[in-house]
């Protein structure tokens, strides 16, 4: 009787322990996760492209580019694609403008994601 009580107790405690540790553990960054984060950014951008105009995307990209600059994580690609998109708009090439705008927004999103991830990820590389 008592041993069953103890067994129940231990099971309860063990279950709590497992749940706490699992719930609080940091997922290790794997290459797969990093890639799927990239996919998420692409999908997020793709979802928007049907709804947002090129202008809206470029404004979004430029705002995020300035944010990335504040964080000292801006990518050279972002302004390059923004310029290409604006040039295509002037030449009335909607298709090229959309492609460039998507790239601009994607690179801006990715640079911000990199900045945020970078706050802690750098510790993985320190020579010990």
């Amino acid at each position: 009787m008592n041993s069953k009580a103890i067994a129940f107790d231990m099971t309860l405690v063990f279950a709590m322990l497992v749940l706490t540790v699992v719930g609080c553990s940091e997922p290790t960054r794997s290459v797969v996760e990093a890639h799927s984060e990239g996919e998420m950014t692409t999908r997020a951008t793709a979802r928007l492209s049907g709804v947002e105009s090129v202008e809206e995307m470029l404004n979004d990209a430029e705002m995020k580019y300035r944010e990335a600059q504040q964080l000292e994580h801006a990518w050279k690609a972002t302004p390059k694609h923004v310029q290409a998109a604006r040039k295509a708009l002037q030449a009335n090439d909607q298709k090229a403008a959309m492609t460039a705008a998507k790239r601009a927004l994607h690179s801006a999103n990715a640079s911000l994601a990199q900045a945020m991830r970078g706050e802690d990820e750098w510790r993985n590389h320190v020579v010990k």
Partner: protein
Amino acid sequence: MKAPKRMCGKSDRLFNIAPLTAMKTIVLTLACLLVALHVHGVENTLEDSTNAAEDNPEADRLAMVEYYKKRFPNIELAEHNNGAYAIDAGKRAQWLEIEEFPPYEIDVDEGENLFSIPFANGKGYADCFANKGMGVKQNYPYFDADRSEVITLDYAINICRERHGEKPLDYLGEEMGYITAYMAFTSRGKYFNINIPDAGLPSYNKGKKFYYTRRGQLDFACSSCHIAAAGNLIRAEVLSASIGHATHWPTYRLKWDQLGGLHRRFIECNEQIGAEGLEPHGETYRNLEYFLTYMNNGMELNGPGSRK
């Protein structure tokens, strides 16, 4: 089949758990929560965490030195101040030929000339530096407690100019190259022995964080190439070891067709991985130079250098 009315035992344990087991449960749950909290919360939120147990530049340096000893067992540590030429025999042979009559010789002469020209107010560079500016490059960068910032040599030169009513020099320009080349030349043969005061630790830590943080579209950190891939080829170049990275500046790069400083190389490197370069001798790159130079403690200065 009869469903059991009670879990086990005589007492109804769901509603009236015996005190001893309840105590055990509570204590163990609390212990789990505390462990989980410790793992999750305390360490990683502050940007320049001055967790005393972590801050040990000398341990960082020794770890890096050990790493390079293992990675390049056949290369003397001291040789790494020649960068890729310590690693690749073919490139070294070509470089030695250039060094027989190095392109920076002309620039050192020009630097000597410029260094001696007085400012409009009659003073000169010699009035701003210890030992009249001769043989002092190994003391840079250092942490200035009054200004609460890292002072690099180029930064000090412009502080000197501004103090005497002169316009600051372009950090990426020729004149800064000539003057630092001359000062570097007078420091040949000296050794780095940077000391980091407690007040300088946050700057050191920021520099260290920058060195190890991934940036740019290629998502590389300085360490990605110069630690993890040191000695490997990147396109046609050999990746050099960071323990020799601070010694040979300014460098005459054939690619640049002129002398350039370490920060020019920082900008170039960052842009090569798709990141926007930052301000030369701005706070971030000065902190990076501080970290990097400390890692070069014990290495012999051999500037100005020549590189492909």
